[in-house]
């Protein structure tokens, strides 16, 4: 292609430079270090103390999203049967709240999840929700987010919303690649 004007060439060069710089600035997303208590009252610091070498973190922002969270559980359980170094956690995200609210909220979650075996794997977070979303590049709180994360916090795979067949296939492939 022959460039007819120097202006066009200049614009093209600026465009290429800007795009290149933006690509360089895209930092890999890392899960922030957060200490909290699982519903079984065990203290855990994420992501370093997660029990799996790789873990699926199913993040929700509203109680009404529980059905969407549940849609991810069967595939997580399937991966657990083939990769014994894989675990999954449910992370309901709340704002920073006082002790009474936190107690009320976690008690309520325990009564909703009647199987005490599951309590170890549900870790409510009480954090600055906006900052938390920003750190994980989550645009809004309208959908659940599923992150495949290692103990260093590297986000290896991500999806949002209810599980679909495409997302299931994609997650199975991502988990297999880490096995």
């Amino acid at each position, binding site marked *: 292609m022959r460039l007819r004007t120097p202006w066009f060439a200049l614009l093209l060069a600026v465009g290429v430079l800007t795009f290149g710089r933006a690509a360089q600035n895209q930092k890999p997303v890392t899960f922030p270090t957060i200490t909290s208590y699982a519903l079984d009252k065990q203290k855990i610091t994420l992501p370093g103390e997660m029990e799996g070498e790789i873990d699926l973190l199913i993040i929700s922002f509203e109680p009404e999203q529980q059905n969407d969270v549940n849609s991810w559980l069967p595939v997580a359980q*399937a991966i657990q049967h*083939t990769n014994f170094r894989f675990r999954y956690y449910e992370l309901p995200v709340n704002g920073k709240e006082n002790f009474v609210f936190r107690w009320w909220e976690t008690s309520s979650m325990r009564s909703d999840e009647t199987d005490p075996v599951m309590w170890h794997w549900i870790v409510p977070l009480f954090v600055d929700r906006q900052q938390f979303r920003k750190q994980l590049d989550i645009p809004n709180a309208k959908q659940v987010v599923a992150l495949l994360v290692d103990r260093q916090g590297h986000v290896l795979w991500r999806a949002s919303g209810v599980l679909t067949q495409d997302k299931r296939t994609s997650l199975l492939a991502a988990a297999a690649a880490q096995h």
Partner: protein
Amino acid sequence: MKRLAVLLLAALPLAAGAQNQPKDPTTLRGVLLDELRSTHNKAEWFVPVNTAVSGLTAEQAAWSPGQGNHSVGQLAYHLWFWDEQSLLKFKGEKAMPFSGNNDDTFNNFNPAQWDELVKKLDATMTEWEKAVESADDAKLAANAATITRISTHNAYHIGEILYVRKLHGMWDPNKGVK
């Protein structure tokens, strides 16, 4: 001297008894085989799966305690599916088709195929033991962590099978776990 001779004579039966005791495995292969057999057909302090699924009709196997809990048939199907799937992988063979939904490994149980499922579960476990016996040391070491967890997975669901059978009054305590 006489006392020493008497003591030695008295200790002889103890020594002979000790020789007759089954020896604990001392190799990785031996430990893995011991674990697999203890969940397959060699009773230890808990019941192996062959005993856990025996003596049931298809109708009894399909009985569920409700509230989302699984039937004996569903638990047995789940065990067979994952044991067979991991065996195929260990042997480098093509995996069975799988949706990626763990619920299917319970819900695909068909009571009409109960007797066949019991045989398939036994055959898969037998195949696993043969595969471990014949694998070379490097392959065994590379897969040991998976194989040992297959046994703990088996033991976990065998416990559930026994619990469901007891709930339904379908368990003879004389077979173990009173």
